């Protein structure tokens, strides 16, 4: 099923299920048996009548394995869209937030979030409490399984059907988790299996994979290769690294930065022109963030941070976005600057950006030199081609300013060009409305550039890897 279909809705169930493995011995086969038995018990709980779905932010509770018994006046045959309607009308702000900006970006895909609960007052037995003692020496390994599964349903599908599919998805996820745990046992230590959702190109849609916590992406490459083949994905770019995980609409980003503010803009009208834009997700880094007052000198650093955030979120690196100090230190480490550079307020340019990308992220970049600003008008093909092939944000420095180019609107026939600019000189808060209204992220014409200054552009290259 296709998640970005306008008539689809995602049901996402999350919870934490306890896994208790009783090992009678510590050798391989005992451990395997104990783990499998423990997962069997968890699957039994999930298919029992004690499983309860609680629809987040609502008073609705559903017993999916009890003939879909529900509370609060909804029935098995209620359509998904009606359920969504009830949730929206129950929103504290009257559903104001679920209009315009969000829907525009997500194409009306909405998510119904569900928490997993177990009913305690559903007695599996009738007898009063009995204490039983087992004298056998054994080993105990317990963990909380972070279950997180999704199903996609049509707007007109009945919720009863959708919920029973969700239970099925829970069971398959438990089986996937069992495989992941068994594959990565070291002695008697079990790694916690963690689910990740990936939004793959149509017609595949949303796919969930389980990765063992603590094993870095690099070590999981062979597994990813298998999955790339299974889902017919290109072999030269990452789709299934942890960083590529799908960000569900409505979920806040933990770090608070704006993501892809350019998506809130509409293209200017330009005859016969096509947009060539950055691909994927980046965070908007700008002056004054992270309690760092770099106003007046940090613009190139911020542009570099935006670029680093792109590589991290596309899964090319697990390294977090570097701070100003870390950037400066990297330049000292490569011998480009003296050690007094660290902690200073000195500017950097595209060459330094290139050096840092290489040093910290292992990324190669091309430098494009333009002898005067007015020449940028001739760079249409070059830039368009970059965005098509690499899709990475570009840092441009010249005159006394640095900016980030997120795309171009270019006409092959007329040569007309517009630049999508992300401006690191913004000093306000993470307010999408303000950023787009005031043009801190916006389309600019040739008059944006200093016509006589020379410019250097740093064009980061995307590694060919999964």
């Amino acid at each position, binding site marked *: 099923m296709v998640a970005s279909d306008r008539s689809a809705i995602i049901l996402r169930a999350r919870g934490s299920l306890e896994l208790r493995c009783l090992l009678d011995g510590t050798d391989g086969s005992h451990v395997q048996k104990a783990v499998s038995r423990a997962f069997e018990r968890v699957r039994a709980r999930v298919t029992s009548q004690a499983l309860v779905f609680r629809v987040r932010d609502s008073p609705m509770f559903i017993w999916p394995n009890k003939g879909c018994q529900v*509370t609060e006046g909804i029935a098995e045959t209620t359509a998904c869209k009606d359920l969504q309607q009830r949730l929206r009308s129950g929103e504290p702000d009257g559903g104001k937030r679920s209009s315009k900006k969000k829907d525009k970006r997500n194409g009306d895909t909405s998510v119904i979030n569900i928490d997993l609960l177990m009913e305690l007052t559903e007695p599996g037995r009738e007898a*009063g*409490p009995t204490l039983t003692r087992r004298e056998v020496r054994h080993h105990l390994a317990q963990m909380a399984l*972070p279950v997180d599964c999704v199903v996609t349903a049509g707007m007109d599908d009945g919720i009863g059907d959708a919920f029973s599919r969700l239970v099925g998805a829970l069971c398959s996820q438990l089986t996937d988790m069992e495989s992941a745990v068994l594959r990565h046992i070291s002695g008697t230590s079990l790694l916690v299996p963690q689910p990740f959702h990936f939004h793959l190109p149509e017609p595949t849609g949303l796919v969930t994979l389980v990765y063992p916590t603590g094993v870095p992406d690099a070590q999981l490459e062979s597994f990813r290769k298998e999955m790339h083949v299974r889902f017919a994905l290109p072999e030269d770019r990452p789709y299934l690294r942890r960083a590529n995980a799908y960000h569900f609409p409505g979920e806040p980003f933990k770090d608070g930065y704006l993501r892809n503010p350019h998506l809130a803009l509409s293209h200017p009208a330009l005859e016969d022109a096509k947009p060539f834009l950055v691909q994927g997700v980046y965070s908007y880094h700008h002056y004054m963030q992270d309690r760092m007052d770099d106003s007046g000198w940090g613009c190139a650093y911020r542009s570099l941070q935006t670029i680093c955030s792109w590589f991290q979120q596309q899964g090319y690196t697990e390294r977090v976005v570097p701070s100003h100090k870390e950037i400066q230190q990297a330049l000292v480490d490569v011998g480009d600057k003296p050690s007094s550079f660290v902690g200073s307020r000195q500017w950097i340019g595209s060459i330094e950006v290139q050096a840092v990308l290489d040093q910290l992220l292992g990324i190669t970049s091309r430098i494009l030199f333009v002898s005067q600003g007015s020449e940028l008008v001739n760079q249409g093909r070059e830039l368009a081609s970059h965005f098509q092939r690499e899709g990475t944000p570009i840092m441009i420095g010249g005159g006394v300013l640095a900016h980030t180019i997120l795309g171009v609107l270019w006409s092959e026939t007329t040569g007309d060009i517009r630049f999508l600019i992300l401006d690191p000189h913004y000093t306000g808060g993470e307010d999408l409305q303000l950023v787009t209204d005031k043009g801190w992220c916006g389309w600019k014409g040739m008059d944006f550039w200093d016509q006589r200054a020379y410019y250097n552009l740093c064009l980061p290259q995307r590694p060919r890897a999964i």
Partner: protein
Amino acid sequence: MGRGYIVEALVEQYLVNLQTVHASCISGILIGQCSSQRDYVVLAAQTPQKDCGAVRGCSLGDLDADWVTEHGRQVSRMLPGGLSVLGVFLITSPDLSKEAQNTLRKLVYAMEKLISMGRLWNLTEEDVSERVGLHICSKTKKAVCRTFDVRDPKSSARPADWKYQSGVSDSWPVLKCSVDLDLYFPLSETSSENLENSVKIGLQKWAKQMESSVCLINGKHSDSDAELLTGCLCRPPQMSSALGEQRSSAAAEACGGSLTLAGVLQCRAYLHSHKLKARQAIKRDIMNTLSSRTEMFFEDLLINEGDGKMASQQPLPQRVFAPLPGTSLSLCDYMFPDEGAAEVGERFKEMLDFDIPEEQIDMTQEVITGKFLCVRKSPTVYASYS
């Protein structure tokens, strides 16, 4: 303006009857329900005689404070949710009236301390922390009622209102539910004999989960005005109570053995108004009934088995209910496998000073499968707690 105590007329009757026993110091406890504005007293019970046939002491010095508070502790086990020991009463001759106030203060604080010791939950900021000390002069029949704030031992007593009314608990709705237990207590290699400790630790974890569980009353999560009938508890099956306490791996720990506790608890709570904290009351009853029973189980093990050794499988004492005469409430007791209605009746008489005909004792709420002890050879595989 102090607290108000609305007291069941039958309690007045009881206290008056006690006073006719001349020239003695009588102590006892008061039982009922707290609410933010006032408390409701539904039962008073005198401290049981220590030795049969001994004459009650005439001076406060003869009063055995430990005995009085122990009585309170044992009675608190017999109270379903919503009901608790509200305080202490003393009936003395006029010359002891002043000393009685000091004694009441000591008893109230000591009783609260003892009763809260074994609890799996703590009083919250919103709970009423005032307990009552009632003094009745045996000559003038005058009742002086004061409250003590158990959260502040240095505070002074505040005067309170003591008013009698009939039918206090008449239309109190009752909330019932049955809770499924499936607990696993690993026993460490070194102290696999210390069962009680392992169980205590396990129960504390369980209690945290209980507190965080969602309670639906008559299928609804939000408070409704409907008369309460069935409670239903759903728990987010989290192992660690602190979110973000996500470990990345689970290492196997060696255990010397294990205990599993499985079965169904019958739980009940009474509330003077549906607006009261029904969910808190029933949750507390659930925690209390389990902690009381396990306490009693291990106490019994120590007395009877001497070495505290447990057989392979033993049921916890069974919960039985008995109606409180003149009210719509039921109190409870716990029956060991080798006991019957007669023993329960004796306990009600001794602890709560009222007679209950054997046939009125309801032993059908919980069922123990077989009163024999069975030995299990194969490892017991219980479904995990989630």
